[in-house]
């Protein structure tokens, strides 16, 4: 454990250096990333394929830019989430092309069940829209995506593999040289190796958070953290556990804080995503973007041209996926549904939601509890006045903004109005908008602080023998400080 943490710390330092070098993303130097093979997380009892996977995970020479690998957006020291702070990562031939969705944490991803849909209710699958049938099918795609590693096809990936001596040698040792003559099969093998690494390496599922040690009886949660967990579980307050179960489920012997279901929660449109702009251009060089997919199922009279509708498009399963899930472009009831993510390490993985619209957990929680009562939204029939007993967050302004920063005409503005009925309005913490006069949010500002302090206990890397060494991100420290001030005031 200590050795692994040392390696992660070294990697984090490397990444920090690269960020300060102006790349706008972590990674970019595969040789540095894998400089110490003997001390890599993949060393030990893992399979040769997993060791190859570790090598490929960090090999930037397989990208057209030569500056991007899996590790660029899935940084080991940051729970395999991005550290660039961007809503969507940059990639492409010269690292100037913005992506479409926020890069998620890969930690615990291997515990995701396969995609299923029963009675219109979807579960599992990989990517935020479940369009990849397996971890390997997912790992294959970034190699050949125009705004990521940007290879034209499998053949181009394999030609780059053949020019990356270390990766090539390990690949041949595991899969033989013959398969290189079939680039598509060889790319699938590469993806299998990466999936093996993500599955076998303990750093992808350490279960080393303070919460885990508390469950094991080896540490105590503070009273504020306990209160946060209670609010998290309370079906009339946070009700977070309804989709992010704090209880063990069938997928693991540990609570995973996701039930892997899909939901449409009507998150606001994020104008920091280039694809959302009327005329999408690169934020790096201003060049027009030509790869923005427009879903065919978007009604013609919609407010905007591009919408990311999750399960029902515009991204669809790859033709090379051996077990593709159905295409749901005609199933408009699923439009806007995205997979529930784990909340483990959530304090590390800002910005939040599939479009990275919120920068902090505080914003996320405030939005959750005021989504349907914010009186700055034009189509809310029952605005709640600000003030005692009313909406305490009105001063923060509407979360649903138009491109110019003013309140948008419609709530749920990242969905065509025709699909508004798909938004989940039937569960706490969404305050029922149908009540005359509405009602107060289910969480106060103090409650939100308590929940954030609890969420911070889901950060891996706790050592019960050295609790003071638990490195929590800044927003956690702020929440802890706020809660202690609040309790002192009490």
């Amino acid at each position, binding site marked *: 454990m200590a050795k692994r943490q040392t390696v992660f710390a070294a990697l984090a330092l490397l990444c920090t250096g690269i960020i300060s070098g102006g790349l706008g993303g972590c990674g970019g130097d595969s040789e540095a990333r894998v400089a110490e093979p003997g001390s890599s997380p993949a060393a030990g009892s893992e399979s040769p394929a997993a060791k190859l996977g570790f090598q490929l995970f960090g090999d930037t020479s397989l990208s057209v830019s030569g500056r991007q690998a899996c590790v660029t957006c899935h940084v080991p020291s940051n729970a395999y989430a991005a550290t660039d702070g961007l809503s969507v990562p940059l990639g492409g031939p010269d690292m100037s092309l913005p992506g479409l969705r926020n890069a998620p944490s890969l930690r615990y991803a291997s515990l995701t069940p396969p995609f299923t849909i029963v009675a219109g209710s979807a579960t599992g699958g990989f990517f935020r829209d479940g369009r990849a049938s397996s971890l390997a099918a997912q790992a294959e795609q970034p190699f050949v995506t125009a705004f990521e590693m940007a290879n034209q096809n499998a053949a181009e990936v394999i030609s780059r593999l053949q020019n990356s001596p270390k990766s090539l040698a390990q690949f041949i040792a595991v899969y033989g040289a013959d398969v290189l003559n079939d680039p598509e099969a060889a790319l699938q093998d590469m993806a299998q190796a990466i999936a093996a690494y993500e599955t076998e390496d303990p750093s992808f599922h350490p279960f080393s958070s303070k919460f885990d040690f508390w469950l094991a*009886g080896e540490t105590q949660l503070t009273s504020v953290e306990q209160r946060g967990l209670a609010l998290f*579980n309370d*079906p009339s307050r946070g009700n977070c*556990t309804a989709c992010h179960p704090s209880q063990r489920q069938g997928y693991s*012997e540990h609570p995973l804080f996701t039930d892997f279901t899909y939901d449409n929660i009507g998150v606001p449109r994020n104008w920091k995503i280039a694809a959302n702009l009327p005329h999408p251009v690169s934020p790096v060089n201003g060049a027009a973007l030509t790869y923005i997919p427009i879903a065919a199922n978007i009604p013609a009279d919609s407010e905007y041209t591009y919408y990311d509708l999750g399960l029902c498009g515009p991204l669809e399963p790859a033709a090379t996926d051996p077990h593709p899930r159905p295409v749901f472009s005609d199933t408009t009831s699923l439009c806007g549904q995205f997979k529930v993510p784990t909340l483990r390490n959530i304090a590390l993985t800002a910005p939040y939601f599939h479009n990275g619209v919120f920068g902090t957990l505080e914003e996320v929680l405030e939005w959750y509890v005021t989504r349907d009562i914010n009186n700055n939204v034009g189509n809310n029939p029952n605005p709640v006045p600000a003030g005692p007993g009313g909406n305490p967050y009105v001063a923060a302004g509407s979360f649903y903004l138009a491109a110019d920063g003013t309140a948008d005409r419609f709530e749920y503005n990242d969905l065509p109005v025709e699909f508004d009925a798909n938004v989940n309005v039937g569960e*706490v913490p969404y305050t*029922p908008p*149908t009540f005359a006069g509405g009602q107060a949010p289910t969480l106060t500002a103090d409650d939100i602080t308590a929940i954030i302090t609890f969420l911070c206990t889901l950060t891996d890397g706790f050592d019960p023998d050295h609790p003071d060494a638990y490195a929590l991100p800044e927003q956690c420290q702020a929440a802890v400080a706020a809660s202690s001030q609040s309790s002192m005031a009490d």
Partner: protein
Amino acid sequence: MKTQTKPSLRVLLALAALGAAGVSQADPATSDADAREQKLERRVEELAQELQAVQTELQALKTQNQATAATRAAPPPPAQQQQPVQTAEVAASPAPTAVPAAPAAPASSPLDNLSLWGYGEVYYTHPTQEPKRTEFDLARAVFGIGYKFDERTLFNSEYEIEHAVSSANDVGEFEVEQFYIDRLLSDQVGVRAGLILMPFGLLNEFHEPTNFYGVQRNFVETLIIPSTWREGGAALHGETEFGLAWNAGITSDQDLSKWNFAPEFPQYVTALDLEDNDVAPLQATHQELALAKGQHLAQYLALNYNGVPGLKVGASIFNGKLATVPAPPNAPVPDDQHLTLWEAHARWMPGNFDISALYAHGAITNLAAINAENPGSPNPIPSSFLGYYGQVAYTAWNRGGYRFAPFVRWEHYNMGASYEGVSGPVVPTGLVPVSAAPGDYGYWPQRFDRVWTFGANYYLGPHLVLKVDYQSFQVNTDFSRYDLGLGLNF
């Protein structure tokens, strides 16, 4: 029943005659009127002969029924006597747990040792303050099969369909409620093994609708004693000469890992839900011998004094170590949980009165750590739960096989009398979503109540009963309701 048989036979025959006439009139091939007339005459004669044969058969059946009734009304052997029966009508009907009645005629076929029986009940329940939750339910349709291997050995079984339709998409269940072999070791001692009904309270072993007052079973013997409570195991039973019936056994136990700490919505929003949804401590954890965890066994003892005609006084106790919630990996082995359930009951039937009372108390040990893992849960596991009732019924009218008996019952139940590890369940307040159905808002109920029940049973002979009652809930006032019921038992 008998009076109804003749008219129905007549109707049948008349219909048959009409049908025959209709067929004849429609026959175009017959042109000779005389031939047609003769044919009709022959048919009428045949039908008259058939009618006579049916009448003869009916007479024979009547005689046989009277003989059988006389046999059944005779006191059963002491070892098989279960309890003073509630009514004269019930006395004439074989209790499912008793030895099947001996065939009236000398055995001439192996089928003569077979007994087939059944019962069922239909409810109409109308919550007065929540009329939208009115329901109509074929609550249970049950059939039983018994077989008498010899004078001392029998098999008995009971199969139940709850809520009419059992499939993946329906709410019903199909279940085995009893399945055991009973053998008399002597005239006063028997042994029973298989899936057996627990000899607890006044209702569990005698749960047919003709055996209890009120449309539904009382709450104490539903929520505290989880009727119909059965376990897998073996028991010895018998009765002393002075009327003390005893029953002791070793059985399967409950499984705490079935507990749901995180119901997002209330598990019941009506009194009918409360009875049906397996929410009470033992209902939620009983295993019903469905791949039951068997690493621990429980033991019980039940005593009943039947020595004074019209009086029954008894008590019973159950104790066992429970299959428990799995601990997290690396966690210290948690303390064992033990369940103790005990109850005491009395029933006295002076003249036309039928007076009964019961107290039941359950306790589960060492729940602090398990509950503490789930702060904020609306449904922690209680450390104790209890209930009691008193009931007075009076046969106001009894004539020609019909009987009318009004009754009143007062009861108190508390499914969470005390807790460890938490102060109690979080009971959400205010109007909140109470189901996944859009717009279904309501209030979470409390886990205890005091209930008055006023009603009447109207018996149409020994096998049929019509019921009506009104239940007034003092705490969860929304549960107050009118009920109509139809029950049968043969």
